[in-house]
């Protein structure tokens, strides 16, 4: 009898504990990142899943090629990220500029990754600037790689 009471007590504790923890978990789940759409086009320079996983490698690799070797016009350009993914927000620069910071921060704050790209690179572009104003060699490159698919 004593044994039974003890077991029952432990079970009850476990059930209550589980219930509390599950309720807590529901409240404390960090919302998943919700990315805004690019201002133009349906597809990035690579499929979305690849970009989400590898964009940092692409950018890191190409920045060295550009600065050190002087290679221009390849497709993984930070400027191209900014041109497409910068969004206007009335809270930022009075909505007069589109800026890419909120787009990057969406995932980076979720994953607790601090980037310093925008300590030097300007995250903003004028509202009226669209991807049409890409450098011509980048546009040509995207067109070519799109055609070869």
């Amino acid at each position, binding site marked *: 009898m004593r044994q039974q009471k003890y077991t029952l007590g432990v079970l009850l504790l476990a059930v209550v504990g589980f219930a509390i923890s599950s309720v807590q978990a529901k409240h404390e789940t960090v919302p998943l990142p919700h990315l805004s759409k690019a201002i133009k086009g349906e597809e990035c320079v690579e499929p979305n899943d690849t970009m989400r996983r590898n964009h940092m490698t692409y950018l890191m690799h190409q920045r060295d090629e550009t600065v050190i070797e*002087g*290679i*221009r016009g*390849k497709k993984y350009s930070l*400027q191209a990220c900014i041109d497409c993914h910068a969004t206007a927000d009335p809270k930022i620069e009075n909505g007069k500029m589109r800026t890419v910071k909120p787009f990057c921060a969406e995932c980076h704050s979720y994953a607790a990754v601090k980037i310093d790209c925008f300590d*030097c*690179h*300007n995250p903003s572009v004028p509202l009226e600037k669209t991807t049409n104003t890409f450098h011509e060699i980048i546009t040509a*490159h995207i067109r070519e790689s799109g055609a070869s698919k």
Partner: protein
Amino acid sequence: MTIDTKKRELLVKGAAVASMTIASGVMLIAPAIARKAGEAASDKVRWGLLIDSNKCDAGCDECVVACKTENGWKSHDRPSTDPQWIRKVNLRDKKTGATHSLPVMCQHCENPPCVDVCPTGASMQRADGVVLVNRHTCIGCRYCMLACPYKARSFVHEDVTGQKPHMPRGKGTVESCTLCVHRIDIGRTPACVEACSSKAGRSAITFGDLNNPSSNIAKELSRYVTTRLRSDLGLEPGVHYRGV
């Protein structure tokens, strides 16, 4: 030293052949040829400047203004720490009183001391002779600033916003004249060169490929005696001066 000279002769000959083959098809007037997308800077080319101080005027600073506008650097009225990619220097002969003026910027040395001393490899020389700071790896130690005899480099002391898309700049890194790589890579001339001819109407600065004997700059260099600042140091600057 003799080996170096031979190497240089070879390079010059190679460039001559290349330019002739181009010339048989089309006549190229532009001083620089835009590289194709994905093509690296080549050591067949050696970019340089020729500055004619006889045409330069002490009252004119269009080249400095153009550099500021193009690359987005500005003064904060703190002369000891302000960035300065290009500056006007006025010289006066003490005996005769004669004065002349010339712009001084990074001299894009063939043997750059700033590259020798850099602990991270951020201070670097591109294949086409342009000396740059790779800000991605610059730790802001400023050793290169000490090493440069031309005082060409400056340190960014302030937070920077509103940078030009083609010229990222940020606090804690060293910077200097890039010979407008973003322009020369697409076949344009540096901003100071353009402003000197179009805005100031002086055409005191010539830009071009020192390795190509048919380029304007090479022709001018073979025609007139020119000097390079502190040539005694053996740094072989890519910037030549006339009338200094």
